Structures are given as structure tokens and as C-alpha cells.
């Protein structure tokens, strides 16, 4: 497991070198995706599986928006469809990965019950504190997200007034 964590740390630094060395934004976004995936590897190596999942879903999902924006500016002329051989290769590859992963996570569970006692994994339980006793924090964070929606709408519109009024 120490070698996997070392691999993640190396990938994090390597991806951040790729970001900081001023490439075109298309490749910089790819470097950041590499860094985030390595971060997921580090966190799951230390046993923080839920925050690793959050990082993978939210952060990489947000990065995909940036990445799609860059890719739209440099669109490729011949996109690959379902009939190509490379797509079939990827389908087979993911089937193999799915089988291996199923064997890997078979014995892991959130709640471990030993006799009369039960133990919850610390990161899952810790995040659920946010929804139990951290009510005001949750409310403020949701309010911030709502405000951000209106900020984005106000910045990007150019009808009568707003930041882009010419």
C-alpha cells in the first residue's frame, strides 16, 4: 500500500508540473485531471474512501466542464464513434477492470458488526456529521451555491445592464 501512495504522490507532483509549465489550456486541463486522479489514489491509500469518492465525483466533474470547454475550442475533425475498433477495445478493457475491482472491494463495507457492537468507518461517519449537527454550515453552503448561480448569470449576460453592457 505504501508503494501505491508513493505512486499517487509522484503523479500529483508530476501533474502539477504539467499544469505549472504553461502549456496550452487543453493539455493543462489534462495535467490537472492527472493530479486529481492521483489525489484520489492517495486518499484511498490512506483509507479515506468517502472523501476520495467526493473528490472523484465533484472535483473531476467540475474539471470535466473546463476540459470540455477547452476541447470545444480545439475540436477534432474526425470523432470516434461506436463502430471503431478502439471503442470495442475499451469496452473489453473496462469489463476486465470491473471484474478485478469486484474482487477487490468484495469484503469492504461501511458498517462492521462484531457481535453486539457495530463500528462505522470514520470518514463516512464524519461527513454525516455535516448533515446532523452542522445544520447552519450546510445552510450557508447551499446559500453560497445559490448566490453563485446568480453571480454567474449576472456576469455572463449582456441584455440591458450587467458587466458586458457595451
Amino acid at each position, binding site marked *: 500500500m505504501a508503494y501505491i501512495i508513493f505512486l499517487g504522490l509522484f503523479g500529483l507532483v508530476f501533474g*502539477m508540473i504539467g499544469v505549472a509549465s504553461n502549456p496550452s489550456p487543453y493539455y493543462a486541463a489534462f495535467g490537472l485531471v492527472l493530479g486529481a486522479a492521483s489525489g484520489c489514489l492517495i486518499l484511498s491509500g490512506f483509507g479515506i474512501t468517502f472523501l476520495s469518492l467526493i473528490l472523484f465525483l465533484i472535483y473531476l466533474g467540475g474539471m470535466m466542464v473546463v476540459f470540455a470547454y477547452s476541447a470545444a475550442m480545439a475540436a477534432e475533425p474526425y470523432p470516434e464513434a461506436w463502430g471503431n475498433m478502439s471503442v470495442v477495445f475499451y469496452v473489453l478493457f473496462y469489463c476486465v477492470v470491473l471484474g478485478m475491482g469486484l474482487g477487490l472491494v468484495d469484503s469492504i463495507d461501511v458498517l462492521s458488526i462484531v457481535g453486539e457492537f457495530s463500528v462505522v468507518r470514520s470518514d463516512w461517519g464524519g461527513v454525516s*456529521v455535516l448533515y446532523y449537527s452542522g445544520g447552519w454550515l450546510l445552510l450557508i453552503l447551499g446559500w453560497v451555491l445559490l448566490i453563485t448561480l446568480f453571480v454567474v448569470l449576472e456576469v455572463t449576460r449582456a441584455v440591458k445592464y450587467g458587466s458586458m453592457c457595451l
Partner: protein
Amino acid sequence: MTLTNLTIYSTFMMAMAGLTLHRTHLMSALICLEGMMLAIFIGLALWCSQMDSMSLSINPMALITLSACEASTGLAILVATNRTHGSDLIKNLNLLQC
């Protein structure tokens, strides 16, 4: 200083140097900001793991929410710049004094 510590620090400092020193596109600067947020997130998550404290794991969740707000506002500014000035080059913005 352990290897993990060094990695988190050096990731943050490298992303900050990349943001500060020499950027061609505004979008590269936004990506560097995201890299700094990634370093802080991993540091906070490892902190609450190594402290063996459950309730500290709220902090990475709050950080990643605010990071999403920051990224979306930055992208909105990028889109607005692209529509009013035609490109997102930093040199162009310096030249036009906007």
C-alpha cells in the same frame, strides 16, 4: 518532514508559482487556482485522517463546495472576457487596460 508533507507543500507552491509568474491564457491561471485548491483539499483530508477525528472531515467538504463556487465564477469571467474582447490572452488584457 515526511514525503507526504513535502508533496502537499510542493504541489501548492508549484501551482502558486505557476499562477504568479508567467501565464499566457486566463484559463491557465484558472487551472492553476484549481490546482492550489486540490492541494489544500488533499492536505485537509489527510489531516483529519491522521488526527483520527471524525468531525474534522466537514472541512474538506466545505472547502470543495467553495472551490466549486470559485471555479464557476472564474469560468463566467472567462466567458465574459471571451465575448467582449475576442480572446482570453493575459497580454491582450494588459494591453487594453481592462
